[in-house]
């Protein structure tokens, strides 16, 4: 859910870049002696669409934050689960080390050095 909203905001950033790109293309085309009307129309329509998308999306995000924000800091944490998992991994690592030592001891006993 959070990733969707963040991805939507990243898409808004791309749209802002598109807005500036279209504005620059329009001005560049107007600077020429002979204008390509179809190109101008395409750029202008894309510019308008991008502006509307940016405004709509940012307005909806601000409206959602107005409904959801509490002003209090979030006190949730994954510390306990992370610690338990870390301890389980330490147990597994310890078992692996001890089994490795046991294996080496058995190899030494079974195949003594001449």
């Amino acid at each position: 859910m959070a990733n969707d909203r963040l991805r939507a905001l990243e898409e808004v950033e791309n749209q802002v870049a598109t807005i500036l790109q279209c504005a620059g293309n329009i001005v560049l085309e107007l600077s020429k002696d002979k204008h390509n009307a179809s190109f101008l129309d395409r750029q202008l329509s894309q510019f308008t669409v991008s502006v509307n998308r940016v405004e709509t999306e940012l307005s909806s995000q601000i409206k959602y934050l107005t409904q959801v924000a509490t002003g209090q800091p979030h006190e949730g944490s994954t510390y306990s689960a992370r610690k338990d998992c870390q301890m389980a991994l330490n147990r597994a690592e310890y078992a692996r080390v001890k089994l490795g030592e046991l294996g080496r001891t058995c190899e030494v006993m079974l195949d003594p050095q001449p």
Partner: protein
Amino acid sequence: MANQRALPQSKESLLQNYNKRLKDDIRSILDNLTEIIKTAKVEDETQVSRATQAEQDHYEMHVRAANIVRAGESLMKLVSDLKQFLILNDFPSVNEAISLQNQQLRSLQEECDKKLTSLRDEIAIDLYELEEEYYSSSYSQLDSTDLPLCEAYRRWDSWASPDGGDISGSAHGGVEDTDGPTSQETSPKHDLNGHGTTAAVDEP
């Protein structure tokens, strides 16, 4: 609007500021581009000379283009601020992310512990067999108070079996098994003193 809670003044003013910035930047981009397009129109009659008018139009277009770029930059900053605000204050998504992370960590921990438990059980089986082999050989030096695992299991089995009678009887029977020549006859290989074969040879 009916669902809107009473936010702290700082948060509410911050969100209002975001709205204002959005409206101003969009308005700035649209107005400046419109004015650039209007200025690009060639007019035959001008109040000043054509060169002066051209210079003025050139400068105005520069300024308006710079305004468009500034408004775009301000929109990017607004998006960045909204991302930050979302990460810090979007409690539903933060709760969901925390619960998902907790779930993943707990499942990893349970899997790890389950594998360690199965490993322990397998090693216990092998250890049982190894101890049985070792303590039945002549190389073991067993203290009478220290029972090997196989012997402890054997005694537990005899206590738990219904043929063994009461606990004292079966325990007594278990004790008898460990000392005296009876044990050597019934299980000649099982010796607790390490002298099984030698004792058997020495006896007449």
